[in-house]
């Protein structure tokens, strides 16, 4: 745990001395802020429309598809480019400690950035009568954190494959977009015919969030899904580092 923390802590602190974290945070606050404002305006025009927490967390989750790769791409790719991976791999730490440490550092940063968006639901709570639904608020944020954990884990695993950050960035974004937007339609098109629709639907990255967590449904299978993706990605990342030692 000590080693994981050492790695994570360095990573977390370093983000604040690089522009990437600020750019990502600004993008999130700006875009979510604009959407928040438009939702409020829309509610005044369209009687009967009451914006809920999903009006904020829904777009935010989609936005993270592009912003998480920006945060994770450097994690291991930069160590390879700088050659510092050699120091980490000759330090007395296990490969999985390195991978989890990297994951934790980036995860903590995104947690910090996302936590601040709680301001919008709290404001919303003041504007709507009789206040917003508490259930979706809690489960929505929980879902968002689980999604981020899985996205960051995928990002770390892919970052371990490259020494070029742009290649790592684009590959991560491709994988996330595929899980997010492509698996769902695939399930609808070929699912029924092949009899795999249940499996494919389960694999759909966004379904677990939008149809359950964001509307206040806490289902164990959704938590298991995101946790499994996280663990699997971290495992593959560790494998990739171990394999590269041998070659």
């Amino acid at each position, binding site marked *: 745990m000590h080693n994981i923390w050492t790695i994570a802590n360095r990573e977390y602190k370093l983000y604040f001395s690089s522009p990437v974290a600020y750019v990502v945070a600004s993008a999130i606050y700006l875009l979510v802020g604009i959407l928040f404002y438009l939702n409020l305006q829309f509610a005044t025009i369209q009687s009967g429309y009451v914006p809920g927490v999903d009006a904020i967390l829904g777009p935010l989750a989609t936005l993270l598809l592009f912003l998480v790769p920006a945060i994770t791409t450097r994690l291991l790719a930069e160590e390879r480019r700088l050659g510092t991976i050699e*120091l980490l791999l000759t330090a007395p*730490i296990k490969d999985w400690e390195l991978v989890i440490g990297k994951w934790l550092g980036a995860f903590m940063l995104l947690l910090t950035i996302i936590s601040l968006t709680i301001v919008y639901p709290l404001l919303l709570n003041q504007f709507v009568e009789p206040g917003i639904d508490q259930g979706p608020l809690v489960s929505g944020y929980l879902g968002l954190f689980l999604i981020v954990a899985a996205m960051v884990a995928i990002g770390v695993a892919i970052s371990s494959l490259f020494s070029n950050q742009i290649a790592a960035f684009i590959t991560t974004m491709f994988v996330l977009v595929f899980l997010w937007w492509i698996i769902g339609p695939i399930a609808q098109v070929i699912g029924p015919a092949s009899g795999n629709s249940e499996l494919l639907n389960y694999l759909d990255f966004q379904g677990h969030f939008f149809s359950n967590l964001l509307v206040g449904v806490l289902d164990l299978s959704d938590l298991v899904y995101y946790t499994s993706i996280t663990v699997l990605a971290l495992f593959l990342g560790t494998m990739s580092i171990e394999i590269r*030692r*041998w070659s």
Partner: protein
Amino acid sequence: MIRVEGLTKDFGNRRAIDDLTFDARKGEIVGFLGPNGAGKTTTMRILCGFMPPTSGKAVVAGHDVIGESLDVRKKVGYMPETVPLYPDMTVFDYLKFMADLRRLPEAETRVDEILEKLGLEDRADGYIGNLSKGMRQRVGLAQALVHSPEVLILDEPTIGLDPAQIIEVRNLIRELGREHTILLSTHILSEAQQVCNRVMIINKGRIVAEDTPELLQARLAGAKRVVVRVSGDSDGLDTAIQKVAGVTQVSKIEDGKIEFETEPGRDPSPEVARAVVEGGFSLMEFRPIGLSLEDIFLQLTRDEPAPLEMASEETILEDPELIN
């Protein structure tokens, strides 16, 4: 401290190191000498637990590099050839990070000590990215030393430094050699000569010669080289020297300056000196320069497997001519 037996590493079809066997005792500074691509870095990476060998065995500080990699890594300090550092960290933070990774108690005190030892105190709060090459090298060394390792592995520690810095780093290594077992690689021969207790010449993944720098030079350079300089007219000087028995090769360096080589084990210098004076030349300088380790190195690494034969210790010791 370091014991290596039959170490072999393949990268695909290419054999980077081939059946290496050597050892380094406690307190020794052992130099790995060889051209680029000879397998020095690969060997060092295996010894510090970066990658496992394809076959063979290596024990470092009492632990097997494959089975007890983490124990080896705890006791080894390693400075890779490229001196990888994080440019966006300060010197202090970086060393603190490395100390924390090694779980040193009172890491900050230890970092302060090592900063002082390497003369980096006033750079502690500066960013690594702003340091000169020489300073970066020192930070790299500090990183390798922060946990007072039993074994220090330095890959080309003086590469890319200016002459003053090179001397500084060499002195530092010599000093460190009193407390640590050091394995360093270099392709600069004079460096190995100055710093190391023992030198291994490695070429194409094999050790082609191993000895103290002095003995290596002596045993491989039975032949001598002498510079002769005369003032005034030097026409016919080369032929006069060439005539002396025992002189193998005469080459004219410039007007009035000639170099000759002698047969191994035979020193015709007095005869040459006499021939020069009797030939009517005004002798200004008569200076044996010996074959440098440089020449030996080239001899050993230029040809294919031939040098292997002459590396056998017995023949050297039994053959007084080769020792001089």
